[in-house]
Structure formats: structure tokens, C-alpha cells
């Protein structure tokens, strides 16, 4: 468990360093996510080395973003003023995405 936690945080630190050094406009943790994925794929690290901590973190994931949701209370005015574009842009875009993805997958999988 501790070993896997050390690995997860090592990748996180590495991602942050890469972001800092190369000044990439992508979050350090996302760079770390792509790195750990690539290292697993290229068999540089083993799944069993990182799995225990990864599973534990994902198990409690939803708890970690509740504070961000609560943070919405600071922006009630912004939401009240812009609810029409927020709802309609999200809704229409979601419907287009659902349909487009489904139709491409359905057409291509038949071939």
C-alpha cells in the first residue's frame, strides 16, 4: 500500500516538475496521469505496484470533489445571470455528442 502511494505521489511530483520546467498549459496531475498510463503500457512499471493506492483513491474520489461543488455557492449571482446559456449550450452540445459518437461507433463496428 505505502509503496504504491509513494509511486502515485512520485508521478504527481514528476508531472508538476515537467509542467513547471517546460511551462506546458496542462495541469501537472494530468501530465502525471498520462505518464503513469504510458509507463504501464510500456511495461516500465507493473500494475500490481501501483494498484492498491490507485484503487483506494478512486474509491473515495467523489468525496474529494464535493468541496468544489459547494464552492458554487460563491457564484450564485454568476449562475443566476447566465443560466440560459449554461443550460442550453450544455444540453444541446451533450445531445450532439451523444448522437455523433453513437452513430460513428454503430457505422464503424459493422464493417
Amino acid at each position, binding site marked *: 500500500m505505502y509503496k504504491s502511494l509513494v509511486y*502515485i505521489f512520485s*508521478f*504527481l511530483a514528476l*508531472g508538476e516538475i515537467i509542467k513547471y520546467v517546460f511551462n506546458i*498549459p*496542462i*495541469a501537472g*496531475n*494530468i501530465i*502525471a*496521469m*498520462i505518464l*503513469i*498510463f504510458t509507463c*504501464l503500457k510500456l511495461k516500465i512499471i507493473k500494475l500490481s505496484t501501483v*494498484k492498491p*493506492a*490507485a484503487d483506494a*483513491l*478512486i474509491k473515495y474520489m*467523489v*468525496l*474529494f*470533489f*464535493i*468541496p*468544489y*461543488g*459547494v*464552492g*458554487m*455557492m*460563491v*457564484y450564485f449571482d*454568476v*449562475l443566476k445571470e*447566465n443560466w*440560459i*446559456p*449554461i443550460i*442550453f*449550450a*450544455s*444540453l*444541446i*452540445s*451533450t445531445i450532439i*455528442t*451523444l*448522437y*455523433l*459518437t*453513437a*452513430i*460513428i*461507433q*454503430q457505422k*464503424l*463496428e459493422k*464493417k
Partner: protein
Amino acid sequence: MIHFYDLPVFGFFITILAFYIAQRLKKRFNYVFLNPVLVSMVAIITFLECVSVDFDTYNNGAKYLSFFLSPTIVALGVLFYEKFEQIKSNLKPFITAVAVGGTISIITVIVLSILLHAPEIITRSLAAKSVTTPIAIEITKITKGIPSITAVVVIAVGIFGNAFGVELLRFLKIKSSNAIGTALGTAAHGIGTARAIELDPLAGAYSGLAMCINGLITAVVTPYLVQLILQFA
């Protein structure tokens, strides 16, 4: 005098308490609008408003929970790898569908919000609306939107996909359940995937992997797409 609210334990405790109760409610009534995250958010906001405690005071404790979002995103990379290994069949058509759908999702929401006269900060907050909440929050920090608005919109989009996605796609003459699963994972992340798993296990696997691939793609391309489109707007 120091109030109890000012102690870090306050925000931490009420978050865990609210989530525990919300999960019990969901287990008991199993109704999609009783999404535990949404219910706990509403409960905590209502409570804070009632006792007149502001967000910063709450966040004194709650920030210790949100800190773990960062390592969790690294953990998602591990989960994505596991999902990738599960589906052995030809992935090319599938990846094409997810990549096109995911990219169009970003472009359409940016363009639509501009056409609907949303202020730039809203457009920046909506761009990542189709991917799993932690990734969407991180993307919004980079695109300089408001992560809290993103979190709420992402969860709402997930619930919409979960509640209406399957019926909508069938109405639009989509017959393949793998295609429905792929679409749900791409457009409505984990909450949509929960519905695909109910549909059938293979559709669920497609949906989970679609969520992962779209998470990776969206994380990389969104900052550039936002910049590009806003330049012309």
C-alpha cells in the same frame, strides 16, 4: 473568541456526514436524481446558508479533502490502463468514435455558449463539461474558468445522460448497445457509464473505456481549443 466553524474539523466533518447520509438515501431509493454528490452539495450549501457560514470558512477544513483530487487523477491513469487491457478487440473504430465525439463536444459547447452571449468566463468553465469531474476541474483551472461551475455542470450533464441518454439514442435510431455505451461514456462520463452497465455489461465496458479515452483527449486538447476559438470570437 474562536467559533467552532473556524476549526478545520468543521468543514471536513460536515462533508463526510452529508455524503454518508446522501449515500444511504441513494441506496434506499435508487433514483438517478438522488445522485449522492449532488445531494450532499445541496445539503451542505443549505446548511451553510442557514447558519451564515461562508465558503472560505467551510473550505478551511474541506480543502483537505479536495487536495486528494490531485493524486486521484494520477490514479485514474492506472484505471484507464486497466480498462484498456480489458477490451482486446479492434479498438481503432472505437477510438475514432470517441475522439470525434469528444472533440465535437468541446467545440459545440464553446461555440454555442458564445452564440448565446455567455461571458467569456462561462465559456471557459463549460469547455470540459463531458469528462469526469476531477479532470474537468483541472482543465478549467488551466482554461481560467470557474472550477466550481464546471463541477456542477459536469454532474448535471452526467445525470442528464444517465436519465435520458438511452431513450434519446434509441429514438434517434441507434440500435447497437455498444454504440449507446460508447456515447454515454464519451458525453456523460462515470454517471452515464453507470446507466450503460445497467443496459448490459459489454456496453458498460465500452462506456467506461470511452470515458477514459475522452478524459485523456479532452485534458490535452481543451486548453488549445478554447484559446483558438476565443481568438476568432
